[in-house]
């Protein structure tokens, strides 16, 4: 997964989202050790202080935990990850439904289309 940033929001927020996504996709599995801040900053081409802030936010959400001996790891609490994944899925569905509504479909029609298309996938 490549790092990418949009213009309109603080970079640390976008970093938090992208690392979260990596955790949800299993790129950084539950309980595994996260790369060091400096290393991640170099990978993403961002300021180490910005990456530090993104990591602090990740700890706030509970997805990352830091311990004195093991450094910073992904949480081994599966329910936290499952909840975050569900939240992310809900967001994707909301976005999809908004687009369909803008196109003029009612809820029932939208669901039919969703079903049709996903069967062909």
């Amino acid at each position, binding site marked *: 997964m490549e790092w990418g940033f949009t213009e*309109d929001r*603080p970079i640390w927020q976008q970093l938090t989202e992208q690392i979260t996504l990596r955790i949800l996709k299993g790129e950084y599995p539950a309980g595994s050790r996260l790369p060091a801040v400096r290393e991640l900053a*170099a990978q993403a*081409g*961002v*300021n180490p202080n*910005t990456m530090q*802030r993104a990591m602090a936010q990740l700890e706030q959400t509970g997805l990352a935990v830091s311990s004195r001996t093991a450094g910073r790891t992904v949480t081994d609490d599966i329910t936290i990850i499952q909840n975050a994944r569900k939240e992310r899925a809900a967001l994707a569905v909301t976005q999809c439904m908004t687009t369909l509504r803008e196109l003029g479909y009612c809820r029932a029609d939208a669901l039919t289309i969703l079903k049709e298309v996903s069967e062909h996938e």
Partner: protein
Amino acid sequence: MNEQLVTCAALTKHYGSKPALNSVNLQLGRGRIVGLLGPNGSGKTTLIKILCGLLQPTDGSVTIDGQPISPYTKSIVSYLPDRMYFADWMTAADLFDLFADFYADFDQEKSLSMCASLGVSPRDRLKTMSKGTKEKVQLVLVMARKAQLYLLDEPIAGVDPAARDFILNTIITNYNENGTVMISTHLISDIEKVLDEAIFLKDGQVVLHDTVDNIRERESKSVDALFREVFRARNFEGGAY
């Protein structure tokens, strides 16, 4: 160690009757990467040259690590000038020897390993190098010191976009954690994501000094977009022909 690394108070510089800096007040902390941003002729190079002791201010005061500009401050400031000042018969390795003689904090081993990762061969003479390669050598000279303040005047202007990323990466992985890096440029979109803070300089005055995250949060736009807005050139109004 002084809390603020750089303090400028009412700093003013005139070239003859022409003002270049007009009562600049500025404080910089430690461990920051700061962008000094402004259009041509806004006073970026003048400010940097005063900080490294090449120019005397007309009025106002400057301190670095609590000291006025002096041999001590020169020993803790690492400066990348906007143009090359070395004899072209020298090799990169010659320059490393020269810098090791002049600066106690120059790390020769580090300079060689940075050369290797930037793809520069230290035995080449400067005159055989391309413009971009020469800039890389200069960057190695500056970043291989363990300084407290790095002043980089237009470090990425002459290199291709791929090398730009590489140079920015070199900067963020090599500056020491108590050191502050000040980068002057007008290529903002390229360096925005490595900056902690941005300073907008306009007609010799600081018109904005804030963290990049605050600017993005408050304005909902990138520093680059804000810069274009603040410094939008007025269209030439030639009148009717």
